[in-house]
């Protein structure tokens, strides 16, 4: 992953940790150890807003930013894609194994037990 991706991740982590909408300055302050320019933080937040993962609202003269959804929400969305639960998305990703029914899983569990036995 590139440097920009790294920055975006750091900014999102700040927004997820704090439960209130933050201004660009506040985000920059939270990332003080990275020594980022004000415009850099603004660019990153702007990119995140364009991607739709950050929502912003004007308060006085400054924009305040907050995550559009929780981290867990996004992880679930990715897993949902990956496990082929969303009908016509199957060509977008290639999952190692698709989800399966209870009977199939049971058959596999038995097969696994048979293979595992000689080991022990």
């Amino acid at each position, binding site marked *: *992953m590139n440097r920009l*991706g790294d920055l*975006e*991740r750091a900014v*999102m982590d700040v927004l997820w940790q704090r439960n209130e909408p933050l201004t660009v300055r506040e985000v920059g302050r939270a990332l003080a150890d990275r020594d980022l320019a004000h415009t850099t933080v603004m660019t990153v937040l702007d990119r995140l807003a364009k*991607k739709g*993962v950050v929502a912003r609202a004007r308060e006085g003269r400054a924009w305040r930013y907050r995550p559009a959804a929780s*981290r867990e929400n*996004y*992880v*679930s*969305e*990715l*897993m949902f*894609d*990956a*496990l*082929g*639960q969303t009908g*016509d*998305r*199957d*060509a*977008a*990703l*290639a*999952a*190692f*194994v*698709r*989800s*399966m*029914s*209870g009977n*199939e*899983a049971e*058959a*596999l*569990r038995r*097969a*696994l037990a048979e*293979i595992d036995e000689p080991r022990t």
Partner: protein
Amino acid sequence: MVSAALLTTIAVGCCIAAARLRRAEWPVRGPYVAVIAWQALGLAWGISTIGALLAFGLAPYGQGVFGGLIALAGDALSHDLYLSELAGTPFGASQVAAVVLAFGLTLVLFCGLVASFVQVVRVRRRHHDLLELVSRADPEVPGARILDHPAAAAYCLPGVLRSQVVISAGALEVLDSSELAAVIAHEHAHLRQRHDLVLLPFSSLKRAFPRVRVVETYYSAVALLIEMCADDQARRERSAKELAMALLRFGTKGSAAVPAGALAVTAGDQPDVVTRVSRLLNPAEALSRPAAAGVLLAALTLMSTTLALWHLPM
């Protein structure tokens, strides 16, 4: 009319051949050759069906499909459509209908492909954006991003510049390191050989004809073959047993956390995972070279014959 009859024969022949290929046992032994056979059948079916309709509809020109199309375009540009005059007679009306149907089918197939492609690109971009934000790298698992979720999942996100292999924390939990390496080798094979592009036309066909069981069945047959191709690639680097064990562990772990019912398995059919596992544990002899060459030659003949018939001026 001769070319219309011959093209119809090819179109029907493709359907019969597809049904037989679906039941054949050799594709398991040569998945790459079988995928090519599927592609040739699909393409030849489309070209021959559209060609048969056009050959019938444009027969009055007496110049074959290609010549007829050029003549039709010329007529449309210069003066009133030749076909509109023909439509007065009952025979002419059916020919106009055939040409319209041919254009309609072309449009549906083409739009389906474009729509699928656009949809896939959009889903992948969103997926990649989110992945960049919530996944992490793990020095223990080189070449893959980790997603912190208890369900077991391993997948790849294809792309020209931004391809990625992703493993969930739940998957790391059930796999030992050699099994994990086998899974990653399998996913890298998908990315390297761009298997997603092979599958795309078939998924767009599924999209263009929703709820048609046959199309659905063929799509899953090709999807399974592509998984086998990646299995074979991974087996060059890792042992077959490691890969089979990984498949089994995924199967048994995944079901606990994921709602069932998404996978379209027709009753009586063996589930895909079981087919793959038994193929890895009891490998059948690979398809012989002459047999593979025979299939490829047949595919080539089919394609060239179909295209040649478009030029037949009869």
